[in-house]
């Protein structure tokens, strides 16, 4: 067997792994930048604040002792969790029926429905929050309407306030909750539902015993995504919330912008990350999130 002739000499023959790595390198580069930055956050949470802004690389636990020591900060953590829980609960309550409704629609109506449903996803949170401020404000739509109808003697103090934030958050969390549940619902073989009905179970029973359990992965995916989304919310609480409704993201921003207290802000950020991780890992067994991407 002869040697290969020169014109067949291969250039650097890269294996598949090398090629993949090469193509992924720019993305991985910037993602690593982010990863390292977040890791540094963890470290900074143990540094000391230097008054006037900035920090000194001196190990201390005072950020955490301050955080867990003062009642104010516990209140902030509690608010954050409360907002998430309430909004998630309401989103599930309203979102599940909506997903169910979409299932029964004709394709044309369904497309229109999805267009409406995803409005909060492609419109800016700023614009929407602005709109809610007008609707819920003191001199806003709802109050004016109530006055006209002679109902409101006292103008409702929704905005700024807890419920204003919840309502506005509900708007963005609805699509996040509906989409995975809808995906789950449509992946159920219609034959299963028919079999249940034929076997004598009424529609309500069929739903309770057959359909709902099969949609649990979608429900959990929606719950996780919604919870994390509300946990991270900044614009809505800061504009529509009162001073009593301080949440973690707003507090963090305060610390950074006004005081440039990096260590303390980092500690708060770490708490946020921990909360998120708890939620995700608690429900991780039930769901594979990547199934629900591809809206």
């Amino acid at each position: 067997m002869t040697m290969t002739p020169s014109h067949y000499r291969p250039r650097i023959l890269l294996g598949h792994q090398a090629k993949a790595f090469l193509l992924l390198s720019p993305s991985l580069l910037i993602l690593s930048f982010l990863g390292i930055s977040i890791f540094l956050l963890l470290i900074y949470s143990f540094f000391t604040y230097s008054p006037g802004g900035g920090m000194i690389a001196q190990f201390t636990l005072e950020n955490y002792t301050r955080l867990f020591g003062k009642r104010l900060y516990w209140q902030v953590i509690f608010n954050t969790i409360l907002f998430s829980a309430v909004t998630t609960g309401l989103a599930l309550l309203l979102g599940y029926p909506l997903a169910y409704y979409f299932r029964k629609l004709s394709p044309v109506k369904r497309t229109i429905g999805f267009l409406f449903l995803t409005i909060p996803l492609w419109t800016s949170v700023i614009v929407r929050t602005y709109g809610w401020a007008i609707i819920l404000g003191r001199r806003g739509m709802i109050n004016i309407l109530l006055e006209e109808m002679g109902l409101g003697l006292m103008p409702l103090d929704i905005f700024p306030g807890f419920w204003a934030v919840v309502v506005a958050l509900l708007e963005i969390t609805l699509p996040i909750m509906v989409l995975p549940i809808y995906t789950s619902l449509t992946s159920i073989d219609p034959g299963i539902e028919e079999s249940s009905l034929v076997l004598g179970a009424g529609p309500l029973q069929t739903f309770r015993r057959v359909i709902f359990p099969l949609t649990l992965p979608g429900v959990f995916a929606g719950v996780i995504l919604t919870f994390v989304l509300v946990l991270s919310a900044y614009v809505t609480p800061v504009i529509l919330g009162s001073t009593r409704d301080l949440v973690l993201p707003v507090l963090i921003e305060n610390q950074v912008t006004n005081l440039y207290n990096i260590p303390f802000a980092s500690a708060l950020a770490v708490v946020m990350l921990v909360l998120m991780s708890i939620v995700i890992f608690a429900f991780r067994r039930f769901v594979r999130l990547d199934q629900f991407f591809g809206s």
Partner: protein
Amino acid sequence: MASLAVESLAKNFGSVVALDNVSLEIKTGEFVTLLGPSGCGKTTFLRLVAGLERPTNGRIYLDGECINDIPPYRCEMGLVVQNYALFPHMTVFDNVAYGLKVRRLGAEEIGRRVGEALDRVRLAGFEKRFPRQLSGGQQQRCALARAIVIRPRVLLLDEALGALDKKLREEMQVELKQLQRQLHLTTLHVTHDQEEALGMSDRIVVLNHGSVEQFGTPLELYNHPKTEFVASFIGDANVFRAKVEKVAADGMIRARSEDGLDLVCTIAGAVLSLQNQIVVVVRPERISLLDTRPEEKENLFEGRIEAVVYHGNAAKVVVGITNERRILVLEPSFSEIGRQSSRQSGDQVWITWSPGDARVVRP
């Protein structure tokens, strides 16, 4: 036009062994078919030759030169796959011209050669159409034109006729063979359809679980199968596992099958040195079906017809000999005297075959 050879070729996908130590040589201008059931490794073999996968072991030679490290785009091979893979966003002309454009040929020469190729596959006039506007057979011919226009050294067909319906497939088999002859193209054809293989090939490689069972002409494979697998995969066969009882001086072997039948075969029909356990194979058309018991013959058994399956020009008759053993016999519809055979279920019959018609094969 090139010869192809592989030496100790092996390919693993993780822990799955797709090909195991395969060595063959294919002559220039030969039409060789890779035949076997799904998962036997035939497509893997083709992809290795094409350069689309790298072998775990072994070497591939094109005209004597090792091409293991040559990427697929320098191998000068034509590839036609089962779903044709025609470029949907290009016209028929552009599809066929693609390989020529890559080679930076002039517009005039491209035009000429594409026209030539389309004429050969009888698709002249379809240049401006898009693949979605073509029928299955037309798409197939377009894919073929695209592969041959680059004057490849080897033509690789991966179940290329699999998506066509029976009539069309048979037509294409003939056309393909004619084309291959005209161009004297070394061709490697992958299929699981043994009739296709028998009809088109100069030689056939029978693969099973990644290994070569037998490599020979269709006639050899059919009449002298070397293993049980080849005997039953190509054509029908009656297979007996038996234990040798006596080997006579005149070359006759007496054996007793597992289900208690006395078999007689000849050493001339045997491929291996004699061992105690053998596998005996008899083709259905070699068995005679008789209404009355003849005088003493070797391999004579009495039975009852269990089923008759009519096949137009012949009938397959299933005869039950014992409780477990059924023999398949192929009877032409018209016997020698010109009388139409009329076998029926339940008839009592006698079957026999001559010792020279049985084959002793490897299990």
